[in-house]
């Protein structure tokens, strides 16, 4: 064969054409649909459009798909199909749990007039934090936001237990934090609450319900509701290559564990969450769950390998002195794919660095907080990270298809961005 044209070789060359395509490293914000999920979704949209509540074949077909998806989700988290309620997403699922805890407290005997108390961490997603803040504002509940330990980045079990009051009705701690990647000690906490509940019931005190928002953990590590010992678990489709709906796992809804609906209507989802079902999305979610059940260990191993390689390359390129890893805490496990770090120095605020990147697509923290300007993440600050370091934070989260080659491109991009910012002078 003859000589290949110069552009085709690629290695180490800057081709004269368009810049290398971007590398998306913001998988904690959202993930694309897996091809199999898009296919399942599309097929359901075209072929199973009937109303699942209808008796005729068009409806029955949709009903079967939904039943299949429900089983798939149950299998993914180690529960039973009857424990899965489909919702519009994580926000709705989280709100349902809080709503249920309050209703359950009010309906429990011996609580007349008392204000229910809810315990959560100081680093939760807004869909837990804001409903609680609203309830406190309206004097409908009291809330304790247990700060995370600056040493471990976790909401420590002892700190949570210390916050328990006679009026406590719910403890909600996220399974893995979206910004730092720290995994919280939910199993251990559940065990302690279970023991505590036995004593409380004997004393006539309300049972403490246990919830975990597992949005960031599914597809990145083991999620088993028997192991976790929780009463409720939030499932979010668009974090594990699924569509933009979610589900709530409830251990025996209406029987073992209370579940009170927020919406009233046509009786779907056993009246826990009525509304004509979103069959295509549910089918897609079921397929995404299937992929996770089959492959989560391989996904975790791969993402951990690529993330560790990213951290090694960052350290090699910027040097230990210039870099601070905000997601490394002693004694804590962390998500396999998250790397939160700050390049130290003036003028290197996270947003500025990202603006000067030509390849890297990432964020400085939770996507839903992106309008906050240059103020650093409150989650990092509450983990004890100094203000100037938190300001420079970058959150990179790798995905199932991220390669080490992508990492090399991104690190080079960051090096050039920082060099450029250095030339432009401090802001």
């Amino acid at each position: 064969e003859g000589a290949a044209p110069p552009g085709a070789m690629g290695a180490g060359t800057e081709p004269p054409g368009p810049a290398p395509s971007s590398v998306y490293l913001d998988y904690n914000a959202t993930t694309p649909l897996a091809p199999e999920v898009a296919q399942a979704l599309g097929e359901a949209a075209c072929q199973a459009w009937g109303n699942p509540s209808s008796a005729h074949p068009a409806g029955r077909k949709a009903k079967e798909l939904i039943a299949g998806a429900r089983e798939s989700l149950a299998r993914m988290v180690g529960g039973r199909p009857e424990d899965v309620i489909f919702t519009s997403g994580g926000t709705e699922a989280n709100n349902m749990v809080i709503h249920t805890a309050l209703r359950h407290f009010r309906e429990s005997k011996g609580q007349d007039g008392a204000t229910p108390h809810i315990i959560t961490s100081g680093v939760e997603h807004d869909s837990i934090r804001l409903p609680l803040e609203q309830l406190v504002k309206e004097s409908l509940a009291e809330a304790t936001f247990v700060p995370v330990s600056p040493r471990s980045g976790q909401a420590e079990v002892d700190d949570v237990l210390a916050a328990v009051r006679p009026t406590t009705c719910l403890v909600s701690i996220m399974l893995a934090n979206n910004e730092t990647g720290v995994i919280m000690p939910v199993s251990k906490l559940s065990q302690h609450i279970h023991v505590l509940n036995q004593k409380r019931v004997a004393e006539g005190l309300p049972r403490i319900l246990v919830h975990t928002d597992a949005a960031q953990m599914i597809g990145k590590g083991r999620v088993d509701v028997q192991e976790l010992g929780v009463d409720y678990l939030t499932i979010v489709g668009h974090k594990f290559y699924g569509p933009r709906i979610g589900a709530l796992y409830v251990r025996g809804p209406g029987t073992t564990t209370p579940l009170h609906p927020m919406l009233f209507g046509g009786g779907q989802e056993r009246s826990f969450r009525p509304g004509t079902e979103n069959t295509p999305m549910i089918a897609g979610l079921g397929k995404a769950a299937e992929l996770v059940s089959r492959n989560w260990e391989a996904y975790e191993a791969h993402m951990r390998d690529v993330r560790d390689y990213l951290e090694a390359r960052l350290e090699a390129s910027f040097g230990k002195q210039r870099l601070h890893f905000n997601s490394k805490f002693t004694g804590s496990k962390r998500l396999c794919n998250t790397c939160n770090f700050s390049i130290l120095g003036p003028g290197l605020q996270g947003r500025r660095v990202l603006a000067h990147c030509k390849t890297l697509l990432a964020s400085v923290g939770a996507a839903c907080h992106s309008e906050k300007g240059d103020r650093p993440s409150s989650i990092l600050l509450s983990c004890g990270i100094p203000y100037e370091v938190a300001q420079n934070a970058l959150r990179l989260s790798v995905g199932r298809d991220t390669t080490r080659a992508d990492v090399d491109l991104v690190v080079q991009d960051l090096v050039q961005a920082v060099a450029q910012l250095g030339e432009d002078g401090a802001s």
Partner: protein
Amino acid sequence: MAALGRAGAALLLRPARGAAGPALGYHKKVVDHYENPRNVGSLDRNAKNVGTGLVGAPACGDVMKLQVEVDENGRIVEARFKTFGCGSAIASSSLATEWVKGKTVDEALKIKNTDIAKELCLPPVKLHCSMLAEDAIKAALADYKLKQHPKKEEPEQKAN
């Protein structure tokens, strides 16, 4: 990757402009390993004194198989490689086979990807190739060690 004739290689080779300037095209050391690869081939993977490491994944575009033959004194006397990947990946694994020969198992485990990258003057975007070559060496030596002590519980080597 298509076979490249001498003319093609010459097209890509630019005169060296010193360490600072960005060179367009492959470094001549990489081209050399590509055109005159050392130790391509296979050893008998069933032989007790042969360790085989298989790393990478076709989906990532890089797969390396590296094999070592170790003598009674724990010294690597022979090494072979086969690589599916870019020129830098081929050069990294070819260099790896050159470097492990003559070393003891423990000495070979000390070979770092940064040394390989430095020797081949790999650009930043190709550093992962040298990392994979280091993984391949470690995988081959781990396989060899496992074969000497089959009862020991060793973690499974995975091609990632």
